[in-house]
């Protein structure tokens, strides 16, 4: 163990349950060069600066030395402006303002309905895994509906997305192999979504995939490759992140009975509480694929052009230079500026969806579960250091309250 560097210890799955003490040490060197040439940035101010620094690329094709055979069809998360902006505008056209401002808001009744059904479904169980029973099914159902992916195909793509998430590990060590694995799985997922896109092109519906395939505007539209890359991105992201928000949320609340009481007494508190969760136990801990395009001097360190850069969002959101008492979960924290969804032009595309899903599911769980308590603490974690959350979250409870329409 002693030969492991601090960052290696952070990546080591054995420390997944509580990486925060390691993050505290990480912040002692705001910009830390790793042996493999990666620069890890862990303090709030520096992360925010780099998120808004045009000398930072999200396109790994800009690496001086790329360990892996690079993805030839990156989605907009792996592209820079202007291509990033063009593709994101084409995607957002069907999802949010200015052209579709009500899409997310109009999903709210469906979210509540699915949430209610899921909680009704565990009414008589007394003991469940919240990850499998509620935290996973809600976001999956929503992203399927939104994208236009048949929910019955879930078992097929679940295996793919999970594999893809497992290969998301920051750092260059073993990257080539991970990337090969990733590409293989990605190709299967791409094939599946390409087929689906074709169908939607023939018979367009009211879903994103249909919009991506059919829309042509002054800026043109998406090529078939771009449709598939975008769909892959949204399917994975829509699925493997909110699961952590919900699971981390219940874990945090169940560890603090006083908090659970406060949330029960004041249901509106769930809104700022979800923001605090995004700061305190975020679903995404690292942005791991950035590249310096020029020598960048920050916090007294010069990151050389072509070097890989990792932004440790979860460490930054707990930076005591940014927030007072960062290790305390305060559901009323104001202002609450956090890095839960990143920042700058790559700010999380699905943030409004994730927020609503998290707010609705957590509010209903808090209100409806009678005397919920953790069975194991800490719970087992999924191996990914990037998308960090419990693999299972076993709880016991004394039944559920009936659904109350508001």
């Amino acid at each position, binding site marked *: 163990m002693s030969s492991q560097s601090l960052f290696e210890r952070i990546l080591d799955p054995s420390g997944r349950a509580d990486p925060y003490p390691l993050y505290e040490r990480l912040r002692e060197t705001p910009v830390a060069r790793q042996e493999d040439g990666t620069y890890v940035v862990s303090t709030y101010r520096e992360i*925010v600066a780099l998120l808004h620094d045009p000398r*930072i690329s999200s396109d790994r094709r800009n690496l001086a030395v790329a360990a892996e055979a690079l993805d030839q069809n990156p989605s907009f998360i792996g592209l820079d402006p202007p291509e990033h902006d063009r593709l994101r505008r084409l995607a957002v056209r069907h999802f949010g303002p200015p052209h579709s401002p009500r899409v997310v808001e109009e999903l709210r009744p469906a979210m509540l309905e699915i949430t209610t059904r899921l909680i009704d479904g565990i009414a008589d169980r007394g003991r469940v895994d919240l990850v499998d029973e509620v935290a996973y099914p809600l976001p999956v159902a929503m992203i399927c509906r939104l994208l236009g992916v048949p929910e019955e195909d879930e078992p097929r793509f679940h295996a793919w997305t999970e594999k893809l998430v497992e290969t998301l590990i920051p750092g260059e060590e073993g990257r080539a192999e991970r990337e090969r694995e990733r590409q293989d799985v990605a190709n299967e997922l791409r094939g599946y979504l390409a087929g689906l896109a074709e169908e939607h092109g023939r018979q367009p519906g009211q879903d994103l995939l249909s919009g991506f395939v059919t829309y042509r505007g002054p800026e043109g539209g998406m090529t078939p490759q771009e449709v598939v890359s975008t769909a892959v991105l949204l399917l994975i992201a829509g699925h493997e992140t909110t699961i952590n928000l919900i699971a981390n949320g219940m874990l945090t609340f169940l560890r603090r009975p006083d908090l659970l009481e406060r949330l029960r007494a004041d249901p509106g508190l769930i809104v700022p509480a979800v923001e605090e969760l995004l700061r305190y136990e975020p679903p995404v801990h690292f942005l791991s694929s950035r590249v310096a395009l020029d020598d960048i001097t920050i916090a007294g360190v010069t990151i050389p052009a072509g070097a890989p850069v990792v932004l440790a969002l979860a460490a930054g959101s707990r930076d005591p230079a940014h927030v007072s008492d960062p290790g305390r979960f305060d559901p009323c924290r104001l202002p609450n500026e956090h890095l839960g969804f990143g920042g700058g032009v790559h700010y999380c595309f699905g943030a409004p969806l994730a927020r609503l899903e998290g707010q609705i599911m957590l509010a209903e769980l808090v209100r409806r579960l009678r005397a919920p308590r953790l069975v194991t603490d800490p719970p087992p974690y999924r191996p990914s250091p990037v998308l960090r959350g419990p693999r299972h979250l076993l709880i016991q409870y004394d039944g559920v309250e009936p659904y109350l329409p508001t």
Partner: protein
Amino acid sequence: MRVIVDLTRCQGYGQCAYLAPDVFTVGDEALLYDLDPADEQREHILRAAAACPVQAIHLDWTQTRRVGQSSAERPSYEEAPAAKMTDGHIVIVGASLAGARAAGVLRREGFAGTLTVIGDESHEPYDRPPLSKQVLTGQVPSGHTMLPRLREVEAEWIAGTPATGLDVASKRVHLADGREIGFDRVLLATGTRARPWPNEAEAALEGVHTLRTLEDAARLRQALAARPRRVLVLGAGFTGSELASVCRELDLPVTVVERGPAPLVSALGAVIGGVAAQMHRDHGVDLRCDTTVTALEGDGGRLRGARLSDGSTVEADVAVVALGSIRNVEWLHGSGLAAGVWGVACDAGCRAVDTNGLVTDDIFVAGDIARFPHPLYQYQFMTLEHWGNAVAQAEIAAHNMVSDQAHRWPHLSVPVFWSTQFGVNIKSVGVPTLADELVVAQGSTDERRFVAVYGYRGRITAAVTFDQGMWLEYYQGLIERAAPFPPVTRHVDRREAPRPVPAQVPDRMVATAGATVVVTGHDPAERRATLVHPPQR
């Protein structure tokens, strides 16, 4: 319920428009919203405010800190404990953004004495930027612009009563109704008013408008809603350009007459002005540059049209005079303060300077009339008529009014302003008029999504973005560090080799007409400067 967005901070993430689509609307990044939405929107607005990535949505404009959003404790300049001057009588003259904001900050800072806020308007404090945008399009009623909760600040609010004089020696403010109000410390924040059309008879024609106050906006909205055959806009600064944009959004024919070679020239120079000109024309604005209106013509007391300097005429039944503003400082004539058309001179801590150039102890200035030295710009004195400056400076002034020497803050914020026109969010950081060259560093002016960087003698002094506001912080950092111009070019969204071009900014105007200084006396103890003001029109 009331809400306000700090658009200086807003970066156009649009989260509010997803979560409260009936209150907030965004274009690519330009945000328009209702400041006083129905109570049933409450839950949506709370969600939007919580979600804002830069926490720029405020439901209480008295409590929020703006100078640094960090919730961590701010270190003080000195180790010594702050000796707060929390009692006595503070008078604030001016009850708009800066004055009212300062009242809130004073209470937040612990000021427990008597507070009097004097305003010449009869309304409670309101926000002006919406008046040239969503109020004129009819998206939001003019009354929906009140600033949240400011009126609840514990103070004596004297509304509809202009101040007419300041007696520095006896520490009294004179009011138009004859009252005199004594003070221990006073904040001067009387702002500006619209520059009227110089020909009084023509200005009095029905159909001739200016735009500064709530009443102005309500009257102009009514005039636009009556669908005039053509609107004439005099001046293509920010207000004039926003007016033209509103007219086109309402599908009203509009002619804009601008003295300079392009819109926005006096703020952004002729290069970016050229981009703005194309934007006007693409949206169907009849833009006449290098032209002035020589006469407004009426028929039976109603505006009929205008004669232009090029000999042509324009028929219009509504004209809006958007020729800039005049600082409300006449009431300070004879006060012994360095107050003139250029504003009221003060130090970086907002303390007013007297006619001799000496800093006063108990008289502070904030907002559009404050003329302060900026270290980033060679200590040149500048007045900034920006929303963000009023907010930031009010905070600094209020803090300094209750703090001892060791705990005072300097007003060092780099100027930031924004404008929303033709669906585009224009933002600026720094001082674009202090420039000899500029370069389009990111994006392209043809696409109207770009970052233009301004340089002066080899260092970066400003940046202007069109729908690229998320990059502004980076360029602000370069300005603060006096980074070399032109900037490095290895970055994202770089188009063909960016080449600096002359910035074509107007010569900095020197105010000479406002007041003349007469220096008398020979002995150092006797030397005095006196301002001689020309008679008022």
